[in-house]
């Protein structure tokens, strides 16, 4: 028993030792380190934020595209609110009493002790009036922040819009954003958010248990100043951007212009678009709702997301591959009787071009010529199915080099890529028995080939550069150090010998500059423009009018792609619109008329918007610079039917790609 009695000490000792462990750990967290004390201060020591000015976005000539305007939020700390003259406050911020009570209740639910936004985005006038009387409203304070202002109201989809952060953003950026903060959601605002936003300044203010501020914590040792965001010089030229938007008013389509030598995007028009100032501040929610419901989809970024068959505009690329494969030379002639026999089908050509060589074929956009050279390419090594399919694989790999079938990796969000078929895809579709006649429509940019307007413009940049491109990008310089990502200086070669480009460019030159060409409407005085039209038939409405080109021929400064949905022939709208933009960019002036006698104003005025079902087409709107969204808003759609109409018409105006092409 004696021995067992000693066990008393073991157990008592255990108690004491374990208690000492607890005391040791307590000593650490309470006395030895102030880590937890500082943590606690994020509750009791409250941070107040100073919002930095967001970086300004400039165009390539340092003209301001997006700047800031001050705005004020009214904050409330429910716990500090005491009875006061609520009516005068309501009057000042223009709300009624029930709204006031509801807002106060919501703020109280969020937190009684932390301040939260009571009324967002007060105007400067309201702020001034409020500031005078603020001391009468205990518990209320005003916080300054900035919102965007767009002096020219251009390039909405390019710049993007900002919006209050959601939970996903808050989680993603690990604590930088607090509810109520704004973040770039699309466009440059999104892709360069981390440069533009700057750094919030923080002031640490100590509060006691009665929630009375005790002043700056630790003499401001932990406080920081706000750091303004970096300014960004974009690659856009606001002159041609604006012109492009005006020309595309009341039309569905897009314009993309690239500087070939740098890959910089010069114009980025998506129509119908919207006035960027409409997605700012208190207007955001109603307008955003309206835009999303709008059947013409003003928020759809057509240059990056639009799916279009290139149609005849694909022919220069087709010719380049044929030349590099050696199946034709520039002087090879093919007889065009006005049709082409593919297997047991007779495909008709627009015109009888008779003996056609490459230059003539391109300038006349002769389908027979391109069907023939495509067939030659695929049967180059023999006409067995396997040989043809192997040849197709070579062909489609060369097409891929030009950036088709994948995204180009532009520094804007939501770029789309469309599938380019590989041999196995066709085998899946047709079985083993397919050859050149099966997929002959690829020769003229139809069938299983789709591109974005950006990709089309980039193809032009490649041809203008005689064989390479630089990744298209929208930012020229970031911040004061004028930084730019080195990946935009890297040349991407398409592995086609430079000598093959000249004959193709000859053809494109003739398309514009000879009277028999298909793109005469894009001729510019004293400047050698090279281009190619496309007329994409689709099964709703008129053909899409397409033009791609570059100018001048030597040392090109601009490559451009224009797509006007339901615009008819490529020469009808796309070609002249491209020429106006090119001319403006190169000479900073405009000849009043194109070769067909039409004026700039006529093109601006024409309305090609597809008719909405149950709604008769309106007469063309005369005011060219009236915002597109505005004109849509005015359409007297019965509110109740909106949904049904929209659903229907979204389909109606989507580009159809299974169309055949002509010309």
């Amino acid at each position: 028993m004696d021995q067992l009695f000693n066990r008393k000490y073991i157990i008592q000792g255990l108690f004491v030792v374990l208690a000492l462990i607890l005391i040791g750990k307590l000593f650490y967290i309470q006395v030895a380190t102030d880590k937890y004390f500082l943590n606690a201060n994020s509750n009791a020591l409250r941070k107040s934020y100073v919002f930095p000015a967001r970086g300004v976005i400039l165009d390539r000539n340092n003209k301001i595209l997006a700047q800031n305007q001050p705005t004020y939020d009214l904050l409330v700390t429910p716990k500090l609110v005491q009875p006061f003259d609520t009516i005068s406050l309501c009057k000042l911020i223009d709300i009624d009493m029930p709204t006031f009570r509801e807002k106060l209740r919501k703020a109280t639910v969020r937190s009684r002790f932390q301040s939260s936004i009571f009324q967002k985005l007060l105007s400067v006038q309201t702020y001034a009036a409020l500031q005078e009387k603020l001391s009468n409203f205990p518990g209320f304070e005003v916080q300054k922040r900035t919102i965007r202002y767009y002096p020219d109201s251009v390039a909405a989809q390019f710049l993007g819009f900002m919006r209050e952060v959601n939970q996903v953003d808050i989680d993603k950026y690990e604590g930088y954003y607090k509810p109520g903060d704004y973040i770039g959601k699309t466009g440059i605002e999104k892709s360069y958010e981390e440069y533009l936003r700057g750094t919030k300044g923080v002031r640490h203010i100590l509060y006691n248990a009665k929630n009375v501020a005790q002043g700056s914590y630790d003499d401001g040792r932990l406080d920081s100043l706000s750091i303004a965001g970096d300014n960004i010089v974009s690659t856009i030229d606001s002159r041609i951007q604006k012109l492009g938007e005006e020309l595309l008013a009341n039309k569905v389509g897009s314009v993309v212009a690239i500087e070939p030598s740098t890959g910089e995007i010069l114009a980025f028009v998506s129509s119908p678009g919207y006035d960027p100032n409409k997605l700012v501040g208190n207007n955001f929610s109603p307008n955003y709702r309206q835009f999303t419901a709008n059947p013409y989809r003003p928020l759809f970024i057509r240059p990056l997301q639009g799916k279009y068959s290139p149609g005849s505009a694909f022919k220069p690329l087709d010719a380049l591959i044929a030349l590099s494969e050696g199946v034709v030379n520039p002087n090879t002639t093919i007889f065009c009787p006005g049709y082409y026999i593919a297997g047991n089908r007779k495909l008709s050509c627009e015109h009888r071009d008779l003996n056609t060589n490459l230059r003539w074929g391109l300038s006349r956009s002769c389908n027979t010529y391109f069907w023939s050279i495509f067939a030659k390419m695929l049967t180059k090594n023999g006409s067995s199915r396997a040989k043809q399919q192997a040849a197709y694989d070579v062909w489609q790999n060369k097409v891929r080099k030009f950036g088709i079938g994948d995204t180009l990796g532009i520094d804007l969000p939501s770029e789309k890529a469309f599938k380019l078929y590989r041999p196995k895809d066709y085998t899946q579709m047709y079985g083993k028995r397919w050859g050149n006649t099966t997929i002959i429509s690829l020769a003229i940019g139809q069938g299983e080939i789709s591109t974005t307007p950006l990709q089309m413009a980039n193809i032009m940049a490649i041809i203008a550069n005689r064989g390479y491109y630089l990744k298209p990008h929208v930012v020229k310089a970031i911040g004061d150090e004028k930084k730019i990502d080195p990946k935009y200086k890297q040349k991407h070669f398409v592995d086609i010998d430079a000598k093959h480009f000249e004959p193709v460019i000859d053809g494109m030159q003739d398309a514009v500059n000879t009277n028999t060409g298909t793109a005469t409407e894009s001729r510019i005085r004293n400047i050698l423009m090279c281009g190619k039209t496309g007329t994409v038939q689709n099964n709703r409405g008129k053909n899409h009018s397409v033009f791609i080109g570059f100018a001048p021929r030597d040392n090109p400064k601009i490559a451009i792609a224009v797509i006007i949905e339901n615009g008819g022939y490529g020469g009808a709208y796309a070609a002249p619109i491209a020429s106006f933009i090119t001319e403006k960019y190169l000479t900073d002036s405009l000849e009043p008329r194109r070769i067909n006698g039409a004026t700039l104003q006529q093109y601006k005025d024409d309305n090609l918007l597809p008719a909405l079902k149950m709604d008769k087409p309106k007469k063309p709107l005369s005011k060219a610079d009236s915002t597109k969204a505005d004109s849509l808003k005015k359409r007297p759609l019965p509110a109740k039917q909106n949904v049904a109409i929209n659903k229907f018409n979204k389909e109606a105006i989507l580009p159809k790609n299974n169309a055949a092409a002509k010309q």
Partner: protein
Amino acid sequence: MQQQSNKFFFNVDWITILLYVALCLIGFINIYATEFNPDISTDFRLSSSYGKQLIFIGTGLVLGFSILLFDAKFFSVFAPVIYGVTMVLLVVVLVIGRDVGGNQAWIAIGSFRLQPSEFAKFGTALLLARYISSFNVKLNSLKPILIAAAIIVLPMTLIMLQPDAGSTLVFLSFMFPLYREGLPGYLLLIFWGMVLLFVLNLYLAPTILIVSILLLGAIFIYFNRKRQQKIISIGIITLLAIGYLFIAKVLFDHVLQKHQRARIELILGLTKDNKGVGYNVIQSQTAIGAGQLTGRGFLQGTQTKFKFVPAQSTDFIFSTVGEEWGFAGCFVVISLYVFLLLRVINIAERQRSSFSRVYGYCMACIIFFHVFINISMAIGIMPVIGIPLPFISYGGSSLWSFTVLLFIFLKLDSNRMGFI
């Protein structure tokens, strides 16, 4: 002598009662602080949690002193009955229990809620004391050890079914009274060693573990290098430990169900859960850390008001102590507990009746186990196991069961001169 022992307060250990009252009052003060709101008028309201706690303390005292009226023999004689009743309640709660926070641990009687697992503790303590103190039971042979183990394991199993892991683990503290009464020490070592290895096995890579076991074995062999007998047994133990590692791994990975594994991992903190359990710990540590040396002062805590810490007045009451009273306050509270428990053990050792002694140890160990686990989880030493802090945490069932536990012992002690 017999007459005197029936007198109400005769021989009652007043120091223990004083410590008990002090802890209860500390509990009340801190529960009041968590509820306190400077804006709302400070009328005392019985409907608030501090009001209720005051009622619990009052009724607890009545309950405690009425226990002193019992005949000391009652507890030893009726131990099996009391044990039986608490076991029945544990079964009943599984059938009609109310689900609170995922545990089916409460029996609702009107607006009143009873937690049988709290009462199972003293039921088990009584029967264990009765069995071990019975004639001819020596805890160094297999049969009595198994019987004692069975008395402990039955309530553990029933509580685990609720499932209430925290209350289940509390019953492990009965191991120490058994040890005091002669349970061979190596059994305890083996048990805790196995638990430790099982846990380490989940934390560490197997190679590290095996190497360190081999290293430990080698060190022991080195120090015993002249005694061949020992070398052999150390070698065998080392190999057994390594073998056990593999068995434990297989057991954990293949025999346990997925949800059981998840629960163990959560308890051991192997899976992060910042929004749930992890959140409590961070907030609680923050609050305690904010107290610093002397605390923010009574009612000045900002962390423990405003509901930053969940379960503030129950399982995490210690964070209020830490924030408002600082390290000094925490030190006092822990010292009070240690003082109380050391006193209980000393009192237990002076008993002539081994029933009283075993019961005293049981009580001390249960209370200590609660205190240690509760404070450990509040300051982040141990994973969160939801068990109350004795006498301080808000709640009737827990306060009363600890009161009953303590006062039964005081009654037994006041009768130490007599025979039970």
